[in-house]
C-alpha cells in the first residue's frame, strides 16, 4: 500500500495539504502573501491552475503556439517581478491575465498578428458576425424577421457527447481560431475558460456592452459550425 506513495510526489502533496483538490489558499490575501514569501507549492499550484487558460488566451494574440508559450513564461516571470508590489486593486487573477495581455499585445504587434480593439471596432457594420445572423432571417416581405430555416432540436444529449467526435472538436477549435482577434479573446475567456463577464471586461479593458456584442458574434459563428455535428445522426 505504501509503494504508490513513495513513487508519487502528487500523492505526498495530497497527504501534506488538508484540502486535497486545491492546495491554493482560500482567500486571495493569503495566496498573495504565500507567493511573496516564496512558497513553491502555492506558486506551482497557481501555475497549474492558470497556465492552460493563459496559453489559450495568448494564442489569440500571437501567430504560433511556440510564441504563446514564451508569452506565458514571460507572464509568470512578470508575476514574480511584480508580486512584491501587488496591492490588490484588482483580483490576483485579473492582474495575472492583464500581465499576459500586455505582453501578448507587444509580441503580437511585433509579429504583425495583433490588431488593437480600436482598429477592429466592434460596431463595424461590415462585421461578418452580424451579417451571418442577418442571413438566418427573411429580409423583406410579409415573412420579414422570421427564420429562413427554423432551428431544429439538436440530437446530442450533452456537450460531452458532441465533443466525443474528434472531428467536431477540431471544427470548434478551428472556428475559434478563425474569429477576429477581439471576438476570439472574449469567447476564449468567457466560454472556454469560464471567466466572469466582469473579469473579462477588466482583463481586456473593454466595456460591458462591447464584451456582450463580441461574445454574441463569436457564439453565433461557433453555433453554426457545431450545427451539422449535432443536428442528428452524426454523433
Amino acid at each position, binding site marked *: 500500500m505504501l509503494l504508490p506513495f513513495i513513487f508519487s510526489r502528487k500523492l505526498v502533496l495530497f497527504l501534506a495539504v488538508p484540502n486535497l483538490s486545491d492546495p491554493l489558499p482560500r482567500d486571495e490575501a493569503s495566496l498573495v502573501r504565500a507567493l511573496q514569501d*516564496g512558497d*513553491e507549492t502555492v*506558486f*506551482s499550484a497557481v*501555475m*497549474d491552475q492558470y*497556465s*492552460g*487558460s493563459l*496559453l*489559450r488566451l495568448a*494564442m489569440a494574440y500571437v501567430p504560433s503556439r511556440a510564441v504563446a*508559450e514564451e508569452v*506565458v*513564461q514571460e507572464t*509568470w*516571470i512578470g508575476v*514574480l517581478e511584480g508580486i512584491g508590489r501587488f496591492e490588490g486593486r484588482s483580483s490576483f487573477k485579473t492582474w495575472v491575465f492583464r500581465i499576459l495581455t500586455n505582453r501578448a499585445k507587444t509580441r503580437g504587434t511585433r509579429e504583425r498578428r495583433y490588431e488593437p480593439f480600436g482598429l477592429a471596432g466592434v460596431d463595424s457594420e461590415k462585421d461578418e458576425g452580424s451579417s451571418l*445572423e*442577418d442571413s*438566418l*432571417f427573411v429580409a423583406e416581405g410579409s415573412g*420579414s*424577421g*422570421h*427564420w429562413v430555416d*427554423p*432551428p*431544429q*432540436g*439538436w440530437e*446530442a444529449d*450533452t*456537450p*460531452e457527447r*458532441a*465533443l466525443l467526435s474528434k472531428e467536431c*472538436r477540431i471544427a*470548434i*477549435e478551428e472556428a*475559434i481560431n478563425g474569429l477576429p482577434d477581439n471576438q476570439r479573446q472574449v*469567447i476564449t475567456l468567457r*466560454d*472556454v475558460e*469560464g471567466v466572469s*463577464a466582469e473579469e473579462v471586461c477588466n482583463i481586456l479593458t473593454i466595456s*460591458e456592452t462591447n464584451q*456582450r456584442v463580441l*461574445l*454574441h458574434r463569436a*457564439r453565433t459563428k*461557433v*453555433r453554426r459550425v*457545431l*450545427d451539422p455535428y*449535432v443536428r442528428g445522426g452524426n454523433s
Partner: protein
Amino acid sequence: MGFMAGNFTCKEVAALITEYLEGSLTLTQRIRFQMHLGLCFACRNYLRQMKYTVATLRQLPSEPVPTQVREALLERFRSWKHEQSSPNSSSDS
C-alpha cells in the same frame, strides 16, 4: 401596429439572446423576449442551441502546457526566491 409592435420578431430575439443569457435585458425586454419564446418553437430551439454551444465550449479540453515550460518556470521561481532571501549576495551565480 400599436400593441402588436410590442412583440419581438424571431430576428430580434436571436439578436438579444446573449443579452438574455447575460441577464442584461430590461424587465420589459425580458417579458417581451419570454412571451415570444412561449409562442415560438424555433426560437426556443435556437436558445437551447446557444446554451448548448456555450456548454460545449466549456467542455473543450484545457490547453496542455509543456512540461519543460513548467520546469523552467519552477527553476526560475527558485532562483527568484534565492535572490529575494539574499538580496545582497552575489547575483552572478
